[in-house]
């Protein structure tokens, strides 16, 4: 399964060797024929044809960008005006976006062709897409396995060549974990580097929109198209840091001590460390005493923010409404009937950790711990280019394997959550495959706004893996 990169396709389009319509038709035909359940919806032929016409016009007028004519998929939590956006929830099954997300506006301006929206765990809560109200997405490498999540539909769509690139959103690993499971590149950009105007909020101190692509170069091209400050998102900032490569990589000491890491992943990771050393890198084990505590902090902070953010889904302003009479019953019955089980669990958990008597013991403690972890990372990243870990402790697991055990599902976020907690950027790059053919990924966590460093490191991994 080797599909062309953005640069390769752009060359063909520019040279006139391929028409935009041919390119888009090829991807849309594959998307329509696919039985992976990667897409919630492929947009109408008329809709896609209009976008193709715009792209062709841009080539004709000489205003084409590198993304012009590229078939791109949206995650089902990013607003595209006039189109249904459901968060893969029953709650918003019939909700039509009334405006474009800023990232969508930027892609439209670049002449990209948005071909559909991809399946995800409900409101981005999950690591497998099994929490989608519309069925699980299958992993293209083994259809009995999950694609990861929450951006599992986007990962599967890219990996199976159903689009050239896709948007994901990452709150605790939702871009990087499915990227690793499906053998593609996924970037969690620095918190604040991408506008979230038009993204359905999950954990507002954690959420970032990012690219999911075939190659590191594609991730770089795609990311550079939609990053930047936005007046509609007060948390967005324009910053770009260029730091010369020190060729020094850190890895957290005792990373594998807790167990639970697949032996093949460990071996693959250790091989990667050796290969980096042959490229002149120093790889040091360093003390990050609270690295593993990130997960506990995350599963306090995230549900707390979820319980607050999802309060807006009350049956009054968006989506559907239960037929109950009293206002309390309308709220309760709408939310009870239309939220899936994981969403309800997290709302209750968030309500608990924010409630009187528990606030200090859970929420405030997690906020304080967050500052400690953040400082540990900042100190390490002054001396090192990046912190290296495997992206996930295991390769893609079986459909149904963890769905009834939330805690074991949460443990698959072990290596991805710390970057969200500290608001640093991180990239997952495919690093090999298991004996049974399932992809592995390695992850670099970089200094804030130093995405360029991550792209440089990622390209090196692509050469030596």
């Amino acid at each position, binding site marked *: 399964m080797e599909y062309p990169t953005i640069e390769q396709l752009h060359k063909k389009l520019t040279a006139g060797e391929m028409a935009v319509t041919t390119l888009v038709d090829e991807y849309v035909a594959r998307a329509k024929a696919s039985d992976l359940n990667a897409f919630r919806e492929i947009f109408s032929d008329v809709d896609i044809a209009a976008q193709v016409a715009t792209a062709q016009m841009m080539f004709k007028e000489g205003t084409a960008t590198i993304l012009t004519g590229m078939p791109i998929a949206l995650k089902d939590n990013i607003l595209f005006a006039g189109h249904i956006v459901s968060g893969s929830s029953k709650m918003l099954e019939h909700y039509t976006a*009334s405006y474009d997300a800023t990232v969508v506006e930027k892609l439209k301006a670049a002449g990209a062709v948005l071909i559909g929206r991809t399946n995800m765990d409900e409101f981005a809560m999950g690591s497998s897409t099994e929490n989608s109200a519309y069925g699980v997405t299958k992993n293209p490498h083994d259809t009995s396995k999950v694609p990861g999540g929450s951006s599992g539909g986007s990962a599967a769509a890219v990996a199976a060549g159903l689009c050239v690139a896709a948007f994901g959103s990452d709150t605790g690993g939702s871009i990087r974990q499915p990227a690793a499971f499906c053998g593609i590149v996924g970037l969690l950009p620095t918190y604040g580097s991408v506008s979230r105007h038009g993204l359905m909020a999950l954990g507002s101190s954690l959420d970032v929109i990012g690219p999911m692509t075939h190659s590191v170069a594609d991730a770089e091209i795609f990311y550079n198209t939609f990053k930047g400050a936005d007046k509609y998102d*007060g948390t967005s900032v324009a910053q770009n840091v260029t730091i010369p490569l020190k060729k020094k990589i850190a890895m957290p000491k005792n990373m594998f001590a807790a167990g639970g890491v697949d032996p093949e992943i460990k071996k693959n990771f250790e091989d990667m460390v050796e290969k980096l050393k042959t490229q002149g890198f120093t790889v040091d084990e360093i003390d990050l005493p609270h690295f593993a505590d990130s997960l506990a902090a995350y599963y306090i902070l995230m549900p707390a923010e979820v319980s607050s953010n999802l309060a807006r889904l009350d049956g009054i302003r968006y989506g559907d409404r239960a037929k109950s009479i*009293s*206002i309390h019953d309308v709220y309760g019955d709408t939310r009870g009937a239309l939220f899936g089980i994981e969403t309800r669990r997290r709302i209750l958990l968030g309500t*608990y950790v924010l409630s009187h008597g528990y606030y200090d013991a*859970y929420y405030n403690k997690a906020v*304080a711990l967050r*500052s400690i972890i953040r400082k540990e990372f900042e100190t390490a990243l002054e001396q090192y280019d990046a912190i290296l870990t495997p992206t996930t402790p295991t390769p893609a697991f079986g459909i149904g394997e963890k769905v009834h055990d939330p805690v074991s599902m949460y443990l698959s976020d072990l290596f991805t959550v710390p970057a969200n907690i500290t608001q640093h950027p991180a990239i997952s790059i495919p690093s090999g495959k298991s004996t049974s053919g399932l992809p592995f990924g390695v992850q670099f966590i970089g200094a804030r706004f130093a995405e360029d460093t991550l792209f440089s490191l990622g390209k090196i991994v692509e050469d030596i893996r």
Partner: protein
Amino acid sequence: MSTNLSSDEIKRLALLARLTVPEAELETIGKDVTNILGFVDTIQSVQLGDQVATADGHTNVFREDIVHPITPAYDLIEAAPLHQDHFVKVPKVIE
């Protein structure tokens, strides 16, 4: 401080969260939430030193208070499940 959440406690949280939980689900969801709390309870043993809960590393973002045209309000109202004549219809609030 791990606690076993009883069905009554789940009911209380559900009321606070405006989330109807069916009777049949109270026990399983109580067990799930208890397990998750047991898992995050490792945070209780973390030594925080003098670190307090603070939004460090962030500064407020200000902008000029200028009116910009945005999505027409009617479009937003039409996203509501029940609406009539450009008003959102809500259940009776005051008995």
